[in-house]
């Protein structure tokens, strides 16, 4: 089943893309684990997934985050993974919008200025 999922996508196109969404079978191939393990990771809320009808769908960005988090050296794994993201700015802004933490620019500017001022005064001390 997992092999069939990969064949459907075509070998060349099948890679971990942060902006794509993956089925359980595809995650199984990407992580090289059993279907049972993927389902367990989702049910234990260690791997975020969306439910579309009766099926799970895992966003590529969440898979990347999961891989980095589970690594023995998360910082270096994350850095290595980030290099493969084709459009980091579009992804970053989409992630921020999806989190729902966006604020108007005037408020963001005030907060940013204040944070930069705090950094500078800490340095002067």
């Amino acid at each position, binding site marked *: 089943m997992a092999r069939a999922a990969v064949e459907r996508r075509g070998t060349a196109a099948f890679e971990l893309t942060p902006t794509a969404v993956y089925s359980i079978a595809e995650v199984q191939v990407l992580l090289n684990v059993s279907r049972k393990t993927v389902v367990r990771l989702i049910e234990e809320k260690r791997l*975020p997934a969306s439910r579309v009808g009766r099926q799970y769908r895992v966003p590529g960005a969440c898979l990347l985050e999961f891989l980095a988090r589970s690594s023995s050296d998360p910082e270096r794994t994350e850095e290595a993974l980030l290099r493969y993201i084709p459009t980091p*700015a579009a992804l970053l802004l989409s992630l921020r919008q999806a989190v729902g933490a966006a604020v108007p620019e005037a408020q963001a500017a005030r907060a940013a200025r204040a944070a930069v001022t*705090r*950094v*500078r005064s800490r340095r002067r001390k």
Partner: protein
Amino acid sequence: MATRAVLDADVWVAALLSPSGASAELLLALEDRQFQAVWSAPLLREVEEALRDPKIRERYHVRLLEVRLLVEIAARYGREVTITGRTSLSDDPGDDKIIETALRGKARYLVSFNVRHFSRGRAASHLSRSGVAVLFPAQFLRIVRPLVEPARRRAGKLATRLVNLRGKGR
């Protein structure tokens, strides 16, 4: 050659806090190579430190992954210049670093929310003699805006897709 501009630390930080604002659109323009962001290590360190500030992280839910993405954007699409830190043209040593980055990087624009700081005294005369215009993000965006539209649409589409996914997951 793409226009060179220095984005002040507050612009980088605000881009992350307000993903639909002018600063954020500048990141998309940068990704589309409509201009080149000149940066120096102390400037980027300041951005990272400001985003790791507990007040910012807690209030705006900033994740480490997002900070790393921002640094990756600067590294990939920007141009690093080395500064000495010995320039002294303003009252704030932090502003001096931005000014030196702009001068050494031969930037045409210095983009900041703190335009006032760069528009007075020796800093202003030095910057204007070197042909560096000091602008707010929205003003600089108007210069690059005609070329930003495709990137904006792309990001919008991506955001809608992610938000829909989250909605369905709940």
